[in-house]
């Protein structure tokens, strides 16, 4: 990534991030350090602040205290679209594709940060835009190939099944060639086979496309299966971080998730 700064330190770091909504403390002193090339899991019961943390990182809800550092650069409080240009891509828990456009155009939008859209370029398409469009199309076709979306390339995105929509959203995020990819419950509502596919795509994305992944997921088998390290949240506070096998064995995490150590016995 040409836009990224320092490539030696961690890819993404949250330093005592705090976010309040009125009297509610949604995030309370979160410290998170994601190393380059890691798949980092983020878990916790509903309402514990996972999505709020992601929104703090991507600029939707800037933290009131603490800082967020991307590739050695402080991105605290930057506007979401600017954070995107610095190399953070994300998918949404509830799909956020652009209806009325084809799958191809949706993924092409992922290239937006690398393109130079403009009125004059549009008016003089043949001279000023065509070669650029074609160059970016080639990158997009590569992503389509990677995620096996060839068969739905020209379909309207409104009409394809939900499993494919999730994949298109991942494709759109990957097309941006981000340094950090944030996936907010990419496997919600999927069956076992679709989950396995998605897990494989995430691993491949890390290995072949050099992205660092922050993965929010409720499926513990996925977290323990593909994450290098993880962080568990409860009521906006950190209750455990480290290697997944250790974290999920932590009594506090068990209590937060299942409700009391007696239930896990």
């Amino acid at each position, binding site marked *: 990534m040409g836009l990224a700064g320092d490539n030696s330190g961690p890819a993404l770091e949250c330093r005592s991030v705090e976010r309040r909504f009125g009297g509610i403390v949604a995030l309370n002193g979160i410290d998170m350090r994601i190393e380059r090339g890691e798949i980092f899991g983020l878990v916790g019961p509903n309402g514990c602040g996972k999505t709020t943390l992601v929104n703090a990182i991507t600029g939707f809800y800037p933290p009131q205290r603490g800082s967020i550092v991307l590739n050695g650069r402080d991105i605290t409080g930057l*506007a979401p679209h600017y954070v995107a240009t610095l190399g953070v891509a994300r998918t949404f828990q509830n799909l956020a594709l652009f209806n009325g456009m084809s799958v191809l155009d949706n993924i092409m939008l992922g290239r937006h940060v690398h393109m130079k859209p403009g009125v004059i370029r549009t008016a003089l398409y043949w001279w000023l835009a065509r070669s650029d469009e074609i160059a970016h199309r080639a990158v997009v076709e590569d992503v389509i190939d990677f995620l096996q979306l060839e068969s739905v390339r020209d379909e309207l995105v409104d009409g394809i099944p939900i499993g494919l929509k999730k994949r298109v959203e991942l494709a759109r995020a990957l097309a941006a060639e981000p340094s950090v990819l944030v996936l907010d419950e990419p496997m919600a509502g999927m069956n076992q086979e679709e989950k396995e596919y998605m897990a494989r795509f995430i691993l491949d994305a890390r290995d072949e496309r050099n992205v660092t992944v922050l993965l929010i997921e409720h499926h513990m088998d996925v977290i323990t299966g593909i994450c290098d390290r993880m962080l568990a949240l409860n009521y906006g506070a950190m209750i455990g971080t480290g290697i997944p096998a250790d974290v999920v064995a932590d009594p506090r995490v068990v209590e937060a998730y299942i409700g009391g150590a007696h239930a896990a016995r």
Partner: protein
Amino acid sequence: MFFRQAGIFHINYAADRALFPIPADRWMVGTLLALAATAPLFMNTLYLSSYMLPWLVWTAGALGLNLVLGWAGQFHLGYAAVMGIGAYAAVHGVRHGIPWEIAVILGGLTASVIGIGFAFAALRVKGLYLALSTLALQFVMDWTISHVPAISGGTQATLQAPDIRLLGWPVTSDAGLYYVALVWCLLVTTFMLNLRRTALGRALVAVREKDYAAAVIGVNSFYYKLVAFATSSFIAGVTGAILVNTFYHAVTPEQFSVDVSIQALAMVIVGGLGSIIGSYFGAGFILLMPGAMNTFISWAAAQFGLSLGIETLAHLPQALYGALIIGFLLVEPLGLGKIYNNVRDYLLVWPFGYVKK
């Protein structure tokens, strides 16, 4: 069958993104272009200058509004005011000795600058509130134009539009004026067609569909809304100037009043949001249907020997015209453009309807 796709293989991305990849479409567009270019030869001047010409100019106008409404998804109820700004600026420009073509472009730029200035304030709100603030633009402009004598020439005044001189050549014949309108309409159409396949058009659709998702892929919603308003205002301004120069030959504030804004909105909605061919249909429908209805009612009354009163003759066509708009929108809320697309989709595979798409 008519729009046969079988056997069309794209071997590069440029061909895949051609404007009309299907030969049948290319033939159709070519034929229509040839007919449009030769229209002055076979069409009587009455039809040429009172139907074809306003239809083309208004299509360009509707396309400009469609850019804001159909692509960027932002309400605009002050479109006629923006056209008025362009018209007045161009007329004053020519009266001050600026060459016609430069004055028209200046008219567009003036409209664009005022449009951006206004959008800066208006775009802080969304949806219906934006609709209301654009309506405010309409009223402010109406007031300014009619109350500033330097612009309108005084209340109730009509400013004569100077004759067109294109690159020094006077254009006064009906055919000449028609060609000016045709070329402008084609330029706007080409721009809109290109918008469907460039990063700018995609960014605008992203802003329309989900602004938070647009932000997350790096699209600055506010900036692209401004770009949409600026471009649309430029198109509106030039269209207003051309409308005044080729059709009205004079400019008065009433030509750009609030009901004209509503009419432009009706063209876009009846034609179909985000549809280019729909803007042609919509402009044609809104402009020509009242007259056609009138003729039809009189003809039908004569056929059946009914003697309709003056009142009925005046109001019945209006009522039928309204009913037709409602009827079309009930059948297809996405407008006439979508109806055309449905027919085309059907013909794509006819008579093998069991083949999907």
